[in-house]
């Protein structure tokens, strides 16, 4: 089963995301701190990363940049979770290397749908 890494500074959000994803049968790793999350991601190489943009210390944008700079993290699909709903914000995130973008507040169904789609895309690419 696919392993998903969830990064969000809010424990409740982490909990919710993990609950939704585990209910759908995914394996979930979580972290509430950007720096340790980056290190673990690079070490564990998950199948997909769920990333919150606004975090103290190392925020989502920075984390995404650092992740993409490392060869081990260059290809992992990243789904960004953000409160910002503006066009510009979405565009900026995608330019930094995110694969998809989901705005808060989202419904669990929508989240699962996007996660599945991203994983299917990634699998398709590796198969090819």
């Amino acid at each position: 089963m696919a392993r998903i890494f969830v990064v969000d500074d809010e424990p409740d959000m982490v909990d919710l995301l993990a609950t939704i994803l585990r209910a759908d049968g995914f394996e979930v790793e979580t972290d509430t701190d950007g720096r340790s999350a980056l290190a673990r991601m690079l070490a564990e190489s998950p199948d997909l990363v769920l990333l919150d943009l606004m975090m103290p210390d190392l925020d989502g944008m920075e984390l995404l940049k650092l992740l993409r700079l490392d060869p081990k993290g260059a290809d992992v699909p990243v789904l960004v979770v953000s409160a910002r709903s503006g066009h510009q914000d979405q565009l900026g995130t995608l330019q930094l290397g995110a694969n998809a973008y989901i705005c808060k507040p989202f419904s669990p169904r929508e989240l699962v749908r996007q996660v599945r789609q991203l994983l299917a895309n990634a699998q398709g690419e590796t198969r090819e």
Partner: protein
Amino acid sequence: MSRRRGRLQTRIARHIAFAVVVSLVLSALVLVVFRHRYVQQNMERSALTYASLISTPLVTFTEFLGSGGHGLLDQQVARLRELNQDVERLDVVNVSGRLVLRSASGEIFVYSDGIDAPVINDRGLLRAISGLETTASRVTELDGSRAYRVVAPVVQQWGGHTYSVIGTFSYSSVDRQLRSSLWLSALVLAVGLGLTQWVSVTLAGGISGDVEKLRESVQRIQEGNLTERVSVSSHDEIAELAEAFNLMANELQATIRRLRQANRELETLDQTKADLVANVSHELKTPLTALRGYLELMSEGGLGGIADEAQRAVMVCRKNVQRLSLRVEELVQLSRLDRFTALDTTREDVDLGSLLEGVFETIKPRLEDRKMEFVLRVEPDLPVLEVNLEQLERVFLNLFDNAVKFTPQGGSVLVAAKACSHDDRAGVQVRITDSGVGIPASELIRIFDRFHQVDPSSRRRFGGMGLGLSLVRSIVEAHLGAVWAESEEHVGSTFFVWLPMPEDGGITTVTEGPSVRLDSGGEDRPAVEEM
């Protein structure tokens, strides 16, 4: 820019030169005229004296030498003529006006008295001769030149025989002197003109140089060099102007410094506000996400089954979380509209018919909930509009939502779209008519104001914060369109949205075939839907 300076300098120089030249010419004329009169009077006076002095010797020579000694007479007359350079002719006439002797141009004629000598044929002369009086007069001779004629009578001491001498004097020496003084004046005038030119250009250069300094300073300030000041060497009006200019420059510099400061503060404030909005939306949306996610998991059995009562409670919670989310999103969007740059100005070709249908689909669940009739009528062949799809969806979502919100159960909402011009501009008009509570006439103008609601209690009854319509207006106006409303209390309201066609005229393209009529079904379905 030296071209302009040249113009001012030339103008001043021309004025100075004109004044100097006029006075020079006038004084030269006066000098010449006075000199001429003086020289002429001098010549006439000496002619008069000469004539009376030589008359007696001349007559005596004529009497004694005329009859035989011509050679001697010649000598004597020549000697007399040498005494005055102006003398042209000397005549001796007897008392009856007959010529006795004529000496002209060095030749001398002696006539035998009284026989074939010519008679002077001039009444004035004859009168003077017969009256034995001394007269002088200016005459014009036959060849056109002016002459001065003096008649000097000679009375012999022994009486009996009397003669008169008529001297004719030429003005040619006077004219010569006049010419020479005219030449002199012309020379002086020419030199004076040269000097005038130099002096006036120098003087004008002084004035226009100061003016030029001022002008250059003005230009430098215009170019943004606010520290520019001007100093002028003179102590006249130009210096005052320079001082006034410097004062103005000081004021300008201070004002601009203040404005820049204020602008910096505003920019900081604007950034702070933007950050605040981002933070607020994060702070509000994150807990909302948690709430929504868990509520949906619960109601859909993802966390194990729950009792019916609890299920109903969860549904109420979901509905309210949904409402809260909408309001938060509205707030964020509206605060964005305040920032000039933040309103997305990207435009795409949009078919209004499909857009309206899409929005209708979004609110459909609420219609079914309230058993309302909703008719959407789109005129065929509507022009394609160049608009921001997302923003326009927000406009019609808000208007549809309002129409539904303020119309009681079982009421109806009619939406009609047609091509229509407004203020002589071609465009498309969408009309949203409800059979709701209506809006009092006094409120119609203010409903598009931010946070305005017709009745404060409606906030509790109908929900919303009064932001929806102001957002609608902001978006429509950003599209250069217009939005307005008509209403009758307890009968219903009609909202009009007019949007202009693209500038290039917009080619009409086919959109809808027949108008669609969509009546809501009667079945109960959850009001919460994805939006």
